[in-house]
């Protein structure tokens, strides 16, 4: 640690070190410049002068003041006894969105400068045909969470999640998803410190209490996130690999999509908790009462499956940069076995290639479990699951290869491998 000129206490210097590394985001700087430029444009050419007033002017001003005071008094008296209006559901909220505002408390709090830092690229993509031609309602954007990207090898230290409301395009050539008849959609958009981001498909207001809303979405930032309406104070997500109680605040439930638990000798056990392995969700109210749930308990088709073993997947020849790594978990139900494979740091698939999962003993003794679908994207994450054949015990390794052709011919380009244990 280097000491600076005036700093005489290494502990305090270290304690303040995180603050020394804070950097404003591009969106914050752009917001500052925009605020300055906007004010300049508004005020340009306007110079204040004291008006010249005579006796007639003074009298008319006095008369106007009295008239305003009487009108104000009349309004106060006439309005006395009426129920108070909804807080925050004021005139700047579009009429069509009032009901949505009443269901999501976070939309009732005043918008802050941080709320207005949603990247402009999100609005552009949403407005394009690929995004369904939707437009963001700017008054209803709220920053709902800022999280550290803690999984190992995570490329960025911070991710911000926004709750956004989008309105359907007036005359869409490409039908918005799911349908313009469903009205405003509430979505989650996210952005990391490197400026990468995305958004989910969105939920119509009418679906906020349905199973569709209860399923969390996984983000490329390594978090599961779901929208919860007012009254839900606790959420439980049940995955094949375990149960998660996400943090619930600002009408969203948020938790990492991987769980790291120490397994002794400095080894970490990794469990993938992704929506594809979700089998139950429960929403609880403030007094612990169940508000809504699905799929929990005996209805869980995976309830009998027990984790049998966990396999770390590593490169056959390690490279220092952009190191891919993965984890495979074998589950057992009586004599049946299933496997889940999760990996990160992989090269994105190009046209004509695909990742394949193999059971492997030697170049001549191997068995294709299947090709990975969906393909690995720019985020480099792979996640798949399937059943294991009965003769899996004949093989010693599990391998992920990059295949250049559709036929099940072993390419030999092993990207990750691990020792197969079925206990």
């Amino acid at each position, binding site marked *: 640690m280097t000491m600076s000129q*005036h700093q005489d206490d290494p*502990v305090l210097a270290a304690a303040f*070190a995180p603050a020394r590394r*804070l950097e404003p985001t591009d969106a914050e700087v752009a917001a500052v410049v925009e605020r300055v430029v906007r004010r300049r444009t508004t005020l340009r050419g306007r110079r204040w002068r004291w008006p010249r007033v005579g006796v007639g002017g003074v009298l008319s001003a006095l008369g106007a003041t009295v008239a305003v005071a009487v009108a104000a008094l009349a309004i106060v008296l006439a309005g006395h006894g009426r129920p108070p209006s909804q807080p925050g559901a004021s005139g700047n909220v579009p009429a069509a969105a009032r009901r949505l505002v009443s269901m999501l408390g976070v939309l009732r709090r005043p918008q802050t*400068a941080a709320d207005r830092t949603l990247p402009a690229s999100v609005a552009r993509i949403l407005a394009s045909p690929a995004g369904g031609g939707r437009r963001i309602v700017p008054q209803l954007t709220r920053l709902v*969470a800022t*999280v550290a990207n*803690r999984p190992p090898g995570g490329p960025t230290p911070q991710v911000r999640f926004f709750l956004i409301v989008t309105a359907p395009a007036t005359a869409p050539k490409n039908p918005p998803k799911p349908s313009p008849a469903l009205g405003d959609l509430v979505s989650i958009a996210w952005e990391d410190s490197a400026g990468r981001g995305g958004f989910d498909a969105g939920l119509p207001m009418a679906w906020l209490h349905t199973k569709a809303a209860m399923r969390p979405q996984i983000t490329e930032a390594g978090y599961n996130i779901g929208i919860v309406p007012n009254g839900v104070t606790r959420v439980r997500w049940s995955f094949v690999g375990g149960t998660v109680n996400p943090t619930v605040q600002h009408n969203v439930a948020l938790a990492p999509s991987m769980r790291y638990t*120490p397994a002794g000798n400095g080894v970490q056990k990794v469990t993938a908790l992704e929506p594809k392995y979700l089998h139950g969700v429960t929403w609880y109210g403030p007094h612990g009462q169940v508000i809504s749930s699905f799929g929990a308990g005996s209805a869980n088709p995976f309830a009998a499956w027990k984790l049998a073993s966990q396999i770390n997947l590593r490169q056959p020849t390690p490279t220092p940069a952009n190191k891919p790594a993965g984890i495979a978990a074998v589950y057992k139900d009586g004599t049946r076995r299933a496997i889940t494979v999760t990996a990160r740091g992989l090269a994105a698939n190009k046209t004509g290639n695909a990742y394949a999962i193999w059971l492997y003993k030697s170049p001549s003794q191997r068995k294709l479990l299947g090709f990975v679908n969906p393909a690995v994207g720019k985020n480099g994450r792979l996640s798949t699951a399937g059943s294991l054949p009965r003769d899996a015990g004949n093989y010693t390794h599990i391998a992920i290869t990059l295949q250049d052709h559709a036929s099940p011919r072993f390419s030999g380009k092993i990207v990750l491998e691990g020792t197969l244990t079925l206990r």
Partner: protein
Amino acid sequence: MNASEGSALAGVQVRAFREGDAAAADWLARRACRLALRTSGAILRSREQAGDVAQDVAVDVLRSLVRLRDPEAFDAWVHRITVRHALRALGRRQGRERAETTLEALGGAASADARDLDLVLAARDALSSGLSKLPAKQRLALALRYVHDRSDEEIAAALGCRPGSVHALLSRGRAALRNDQSLVQFSRAVPGG
């Protein structure tokens, strides 16, 4: 880039801004945002609140840049405006604890190679508990010293008091933090601490 080089460069950019250079406006906005963000980030618990303060400071700075007599004193001027905004933000926090809290400590997703991040989080926790017990001016004096490496005279100019008072503020602040239990624990994890 050291502080004097930074001040000289800021002076050049201020002159360019006054001549209507849009790129200079961006540069100055970023620098003002960065300085204010680091100060407010050290004394406020939430990144969002610090970001709000930083944006307000940068807007104030750009709007009133024509009044800055010495362009080389840009940084000191930003610190003075930051102090004003930060004191206001701290005053607001006394009344009501903001409902928005960061979720940085989410999930307990610790990792073997995340020691740096753990140290950062430990530093944040230790500081936020220790600093919350200090008066606002002591916090600001400590932030200007340990975040921006400012001398007593420069801190005095930012806080609007005498250098002797800054010396006292820093001594008391340091003494209080050294007795704080969470910072004592943190000091054991710091190499050379």
